[in-house]
């Protein structure tokens, strides 16, 4: 490697300009905006204006509660499912591997709008295929859209369908980088497949699993499109409203940029806490 400032910056500058203007500066700017009253012209500095409102706003706590609830249930379920998919797809006994991979990985390319539309139709009260199937096996149909619990379940089902395969891809890549001879040695020592999974695969895969967890938590924390389109703007009655949706409503419906920035920085704070937890969980043992 050679020390050449001019050459290096010639390659770096075009990207750095964009990165500074559309990422680094907005991160700072958003923080500053959260301390300003933005519905007066000109904006004025009022440190507790938005943050004071935030800690007394039932809508904020409702969105925070919903977001955390989805996080706590959906993410572990999805990562466990992704782990199962990855382990089974990795099995040497599997035939027609390509077809199974296609089935689980295909949702990765499907856009949020397209799949939100399909899920709306599939879970429709009177004409949705899901309720028809429930009925046909003698179960009562479920009103997925006007009760909070089924509506939340629907959001979690949709997100899990869309992202489980994505995580399985990452986990599978992690598994395939575990050296084959570790398993061969274990098999020679008559260690069962199940034990091999718990004592070899899981520990060696821990950094990848933690990575998937962090990625999924940060993704789910910003959940917007699904409650926006599937349960119609966080319905019923705010029952599926998330922080992402609150940010959208405050920032772009009410044009209350200061308050929306405070909401955004709440998400950033959560993300920072989670990232620090990840670093701590995957730290090198001393």
């Amino acid at each position, binding site marked *: *490697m050679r020390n*050449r400032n001019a*050459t*290096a910056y010639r*390659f*770096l500058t*075009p*990207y*750095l300009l964009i*990165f500074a203007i*559309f990422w680094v500066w*907005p*991160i700072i700017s*958003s923080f500053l*905006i959260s301390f300003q009253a933005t519905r007066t012209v000109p904006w004025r500095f009022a440190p507790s204006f938005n943050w004071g409102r935030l800690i007394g706003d039932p809508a904020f706590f409702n969105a925070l509660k919903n977001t955390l609830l989805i996080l706590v249930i959906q993410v572990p379920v999805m990562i466990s499912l992704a782990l199962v*998919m990855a382990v*089974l797809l990795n099995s040497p*006994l*599997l035939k027609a591997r390509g*077809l*199974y991979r296609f*089935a689980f*990985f*295909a*949702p*990765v*390319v*499907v*856009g*949020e*709008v*397209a799949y*939100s*539309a*399909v*899920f709306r*139709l*599939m879970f429709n009260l*009177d*004409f949705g295929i899901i309720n*028809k199937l429930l009925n*046909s096996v003698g179960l009562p149909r479920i009103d997925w859209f006007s009760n909070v619990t089924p509506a939340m379940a629907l959001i979690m089902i949709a997100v899990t*369908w869309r992202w489980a395969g994505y995580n399985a*891809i*990452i986990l599978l*890549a992690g598994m395939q980088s575990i050296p084959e001879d570790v398993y061969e040695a274990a098999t020679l020592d008559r260690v069962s497949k199940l034990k091999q999974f718990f004592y070899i695969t899981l520990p060696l895969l821990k950094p990848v699993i933690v*990575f998937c967890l962090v990625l999924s938590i*940060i993704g789910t*924390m910003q959940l*917007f*499109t699904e409650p926006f*389109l599937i349960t119609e703007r966080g319905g019923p009655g705010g029952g599926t409203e998330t*922080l*992402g949706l609150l940010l959208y409503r405050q920032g772009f419906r009410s044009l209350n*940029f200061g308050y*929306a920035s405070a909401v*955004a920085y709440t*998400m*950033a704070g959560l993300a920072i806490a*989670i990232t620090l937890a990840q670093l701590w969980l995957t730290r090198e043992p001393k």
Partner: protein
Amino acid sequence: MSSRSSARLGRSIALHLFLTPLALIWLFPLWMMVVFSTMPDNGIFSPGIELLPHGNFIDNFNNLQRDTNFVGAIGISVSVAVTYTILSVLLTSMAGWALARYQFFGKGVVVAIILGTITLPYAVVLIPQFIMVARDFKLANTWVALIVPPLFNSLGVLFMRQSFSMMPDDLFDAARVEGVKEWRIFLFVALPLARPMLAALAIILFLASWNNYLWPLLINSQPGSMTAPVALGTLIGLTKVSWGGIMAGAVMLTVPMLVVFVLLQRHFIAGIAAGAVK
């Protein structure tokens, strides 16, 4: 020996008995998307169970085109995704090259800022980006607004930095001894060697742009400037709208990507697994 092979067979059967229903459940929404897109609206909203495609796709497409200019929106989406992908691959591979192959003043700071902010939620920059692009630059409802701000994405920088730093030094030193200029080494030696990585990156970036929803929804809300997902999204929730048409649109957004996925699966998977490189 035979008891071991019969145990293997038993395990294999159990594996397929578990995985097949799960795979069918996973394919079901995509299958229903196709089925819905071929059914008339009164068929979608009827009490019977329909699991097979009908022949109404063209009618549904015409209904969609009546509800919104979907063909125009697809045109915008394709042009934006292609332009974005080319620019982003170029910018991020140049930056990745600089970070991988040169020692320079401020390098540590640049890497620290990229890595230190990569897990911040995109939601944090949404408001300032919007204010800047819409109010300060007055670029709302333009192509520039759709293409340029998302170029900040640093995934490509890290991915290409990793790819270039794994290449042996001698390759480039040989060219340097011959007096080849650095930008020519980058363009004609490094980039061709990185072709599989560039393909993986390009696919992931194209897909991200094609499916991008929130930013285009905010910044290009005028009917003539909407991308296809945004145009389709405006129809969801309307009372007088053709759901068969919405499904035809969903199929048009999804099926081309599924074809690309099947054809380029290796690159696709490499691109997604690359999300895990640090």
